[in-house]
């Protein structure tokens, strides 16, 4: 009896947890003009409206391009950093790792404000380079962490074995280290892409009239209106994120990728 109650409680909590993400989907097909439950009819009109909303389409395009650039840049900077931290024993190593991870520990609102003030002075407000740097503030720590974990789970001694067989350091990296890091690299790409794509608070502070990202556009839309169009966008975003995770799992297996 107690077991049954416990299981019911767990089920109830899980429903609570997943409710908003799931309920957005039927709402997106609502035929109503406003957010109302239950929807009076089934309609695709909000999807149509979404495609026609120019601001949203442009913001979506910006978010994708930005996320791709940020992912590439993060990988290019985090990989060497992770290598150096894993291979080089030096006095301040733990401090450097802590410093590189620190941005994740602070509230995004504070980081956003700090960046806003500096960016205004440097003329980076509402610019692509500015936004890219701002996103890297939060994506670099993830990159360094995930890649460090990937490096630490390499099979022991394989690099030494390769060296003993005549491979100079560059060949060891190219033929042994890199191929074995592929799951970690893929995981980093997926995580960094999603973090940048979904990033809202910092972007909110730093966007400009000519450069808006999708989360910010959505935020402003929700602030001013409450109609089911956001549900349509949200449904697509949920499907999109799910697709990325599924591809990741198919390609390298979720557990292997996260290194646990």
């Amino acid at each position, binding site marked *: 009896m107690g077991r049954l109650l416990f299981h019911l409680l767990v089920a109830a909590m899980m429903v609570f947890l997943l409710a908003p993400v799931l309920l957005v989907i039927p709402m997106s097909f609502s035929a109503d003009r406003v957010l109302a439950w239950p929807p009076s009819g089934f309609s695709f009109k909000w999807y149509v409206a979404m495609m026609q909303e120019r601001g949203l389409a442009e913001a979506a395009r910006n978010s994708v391009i930005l996320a791709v650039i940020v992912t590439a840049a993060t990988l290019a900077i985090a990989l060497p950093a992770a290598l150096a931290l894993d291979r080089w024993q030096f006095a301040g190593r733990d401090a450097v790792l802590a410093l590189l991870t620190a941005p994740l520990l602070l509230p995004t609102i504070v980081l956003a404000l700090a960046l806003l003030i500096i960016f205004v002075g440097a003329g980076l407000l509402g610019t692509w380079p500015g936004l890219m740097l701002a996103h890297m503030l939060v994506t670099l720590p993830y990159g360094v962490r995930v890649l460090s974990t990937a490096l630490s789970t390499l*099979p*022991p*001694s*394989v690099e*030494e*074995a*390769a*060296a*003993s*067989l*005549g*491979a*100079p*350091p560059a*060949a060891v990296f190219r*033929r*042994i280290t890199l*191929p*074995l890091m592929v799951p970690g690299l893929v995981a980093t790409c997926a995580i960094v892409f999603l973090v940048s794509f979904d990033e809202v608070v910092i972007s909110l502070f730093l966007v400009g009239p000519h450069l808006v990202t999708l989360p910010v556009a959505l935020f402003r839309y929700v602030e001013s209106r409450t109609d089911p169009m956001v549900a349509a966008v949200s449904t697509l975003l949920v499907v999109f994120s799910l697709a990325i995770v599924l591809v990741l799992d198919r390609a390298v297996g979720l557990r292997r990728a996260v290194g646990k």
Partner: protein
Amino acid sequence: MTDAHLVLDHLEKRFGAGPPAVASLSLEVRRGELLGLLGPSGCGKTTTLRMIGGLADATAGHIRVGGRDVTSLPPHLRDMGIVFQNYALFPHMNVAGNVAFGLEMRKRPKAEIAQKVERALAMVHLEGFGHRKPRELSGGQQQRVALARALVIEPAILLLDEPLSNLDAKLREEMRGEIRDIQKRLGITTIFVTHDQVEALAMCDRIAVMRAGELEQVGTPFEIYENPATPFVADFVGRINRLEGVRDAAGDIVAGSLRLRAARAGAAGKVTVMIRPHRIHIAEGAIGPEWNDAAGTIRRATYVGDVLSCAVECDGTVLTVERHTHPGQPIPREGEAVRLAWRISDTMAFEA
């Protein structure tokens, strides 16, 4: 040694303050010799091997191969084959790819690589395994791939870091013979690191016993076993009885309740007496002058099929006595009174 192939010259490895991991080690290995580095964990044998292979930098000293100083060469230029304790096979390549790797690094033509890989796999009895992945292989098979991979490049020196310790007992014995055969056939100078003294005795031409970063003794298995240079070596290799005693001016030694004489004369003072259990016999009849003797009672008799081991208490001092079993020979009972005898020439005494 004029035909020394590998020379370690006052090799030293320090990690920070504290005692060194390897202290001023000097050793010469003949061409084609199989030398064992034997010792307990932490004695520095693996560190020494890693320095020879270039995987660890020596703090001081030199390493010479065929007269050439390789001390400052990185591992990929040393032309040595290394077999790691956990085999370190490349998981993302198949067996053939693993074995071919060293040859690819040497930019050999494809046809030559294919042919040599095939021959190497045949040598370790893994013909046809080329397409398998390492994770599909058993421990023993992985070990043979690791061996093939190290040998196919025809290195000047072969380094084996406890390659058999992850295998079960039966497989270990089998591989011992196989490695030995291959090594002799190729005539390749080999260093073999192990903590298993039976393995070292069985396989090696000579053994270097190490302890706390230093060499205790270098010699053939026979020399190490029969004439250990220190109590540590005597104790580490094979089973042994160990007694503390005092030698007087006349050369007699009193150890516990026993009076005995040792094989070699020495100064008066404290000594450590050591006697191999299988050199002690349960005496029947008269005991000659070249024998030490003691009276005792059987405390425990252990029968393990081929060997009978008895713990005999002689007035407070316990000696272990071993002998091979024979059909018809009765097993001594607990409490039985016996007389023990062993040759004076089998009695080792080390000054403290």
